[in-house]
């Protein structure tokens, strides 16, 4: 049972890290939209491309990290 508690603890910390990165690209960066604009259209870039690319990478990264956690505790489906 303690193995399960430890597994869930690690899963929760991964969730928090994921949500912090997510919140940065979803909300925080766009608060500074007007300061990102210079000779390069930074606000347009972040809302139209940067945030999306970050989300794609974040989702794949999350999936592989969570999978490693499951394997570490012998909780993955292949075990």
């Amino acid at each position, binding site marked *: 049972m303690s193995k399960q508690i430890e597994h869930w603890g690690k899963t929760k910390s991964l969730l928090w890290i994921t949500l912090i990165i997510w919140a940065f690209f979803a909300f925080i960066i*766009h608060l500074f939209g007007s300061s990102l604009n210079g000779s*390069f*259209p930074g606000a347009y870039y972040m809302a*139209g491309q940067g*945030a*999306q690319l970050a989300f*794609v990478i974040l989702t794949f990264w999350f999936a592989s990290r969570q999978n490693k956690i499951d394997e570490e505790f012998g909780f993955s489906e292949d075990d």
Partner: protein
Amino acid sequence: MLRLGDNFITSLNKVYGIYTLGFLGFVILMAILEVAGVSNTIIGWLFVAFTVLIYALIGVLSRTMQSSQYYVAGREVPAVYNGMATAADWMSGASFIAMAGGIYLQGYPYMGFLVGWTGGYVLVASLIAPYLRKFGCYTVPDFIGTRYGGNLPRVCAVIILVVASFTYVTAQINGTGTVASRALQIPFEVGVWIGLAGILFCSMLGGMRAVTWTQVAQYIVLIIAYLIPVFWMSNKLGYGLIPHFAQFDAVSRVQELEGLLGVKELLPTAEAQAEAGKLAALKVGINDASATAMANWKFFTLVLCMMAGTASLPHVLMRYFTTASVKAARQSVGWSLLFICLLYLTAPALATFTKLSLLDPTVATSIIGKSITEVSNIEWIQQWSNVGFLKLVDGNGDGILQINEFFMRGDIVVLATPEMAGLPYVISGLVAAGGLAAAMSTADGLLLAIANALSHDLYYKVIDPKADTSRRLVVARVLLLFIGAAGAFVASLKLTSILGAVAWAFCFANSGLFFPLVLGVWWKRANKAGAVAGMIGGFGVGFWYLYMVQFGGMTPWYGIDGLRFGMIGMPVSLILMVVVSLMTEEPDKETQDMVDAIRVPKGKAVLAADH
């Protein structure tokens, strides 16, 4: 009769590879026909007829009488293909037809939709989808009903699902009607019913199995149709090979032109606007991120509502019930997002290059600054004026078309771009087929979500638990037929715009379902009374607020308008759910063990494979 066999899964790459090449071959054949002098109307008909027939064929070949095949496609869909199917399921008429137009007309604030409709998938992957996959449910109310116990939570979830999905599906059927009526030159009402017939063919006989394989086919058509015109324009205008990199120079050029043409100073006169009705002139800059607190708040609330809505819309979540494992479900979310981004990263480029084609005086296709007589003789201006999608109003009477005298509907940015940029008609036919694929694939998923919830959760689990499989599947199909017809009927009344209805659906879903779903996995203490209070309270208050703002004449609080009413519903749902859960008894041991079981991928699903 022929039917897709078990070896179909192992030869997916071959099947869809041949399909993609076949479709490209068909496009080339149409181009040859166009050069040979075949009329535009016939090419439009061929595009629509050919693609819809293929989808219907896949739908018929995938027919099944097994409940696990009907409800969750046998749980054997590979992660990448499920990603493609989810992308088609997700990207609706609003994404395909309305988004680029919204960016064109409303500029930076509208790009909140782009952020919200992608970032929501991070929540789907991390908070909800893999756990629901482990749970082994057929539908979203199936999870709510089993996790919280009893019929009341199940019925509440069914009601929210039906309201949210039905609002959404009328917008999609409306979208199929719009595209079909334009491409086939038939009345809108007829287009709606033809679209519905295609949708039902795809889903009725094979349920989720059929919808999965048609959605993959529809994704391939819609993404080809969306990308080709943008690549073409980027190269034609001389900005570079890849529009996604080339668009930033184009943005700077548009900003230069905004100054020259007076985009933000020259506003339409009241008389001109009255004459143009609901059509809009360009009034905002392409990249004006405002630093005011209100602008930031509006961006923030829109993004948050769309994200939480993504993570609670049943037709999206149920796609992840079809993967072979929990691990595959997680990866599949990544693939979905990647396939979605192929289109979403292209939408701003499309809006920007279209703007350039119309505004830049050094480009041959530009219209601003030319004489009104000259512009009104252009073929595409005439065609789209005839159907009321655009209007030229000479406000100052100088005979020259200024930026504040060109009124349009946002939808034409995608639908008319090939004509605006002077591309051959075959591209217009392709875009129509793509728009139809986008609207049909989403409508399929939504109708199935509604019919499955009613047949599985309401009929089988609540009304007649002894019904055998074949009876349940017959009920599911009859419901599909009725709901489809009801959707088409409401769509033909044209009550709301496509985008308004879509944003409402997201807020209905997040007000009622977001916290019951998330806390059901992440908070063991959440119990039946809390979930019921959260669902009824969040959904009810959200509904009331929408009604008051939209029809009751109430001034929105802090800029929270009808697009964002989840900002009211969600906090109510969270607070009620937490407070009521804490005030009542904690869930029994059995329920707590169930939550433990879904938190690890290993082991048996909570619900049996055939339940």
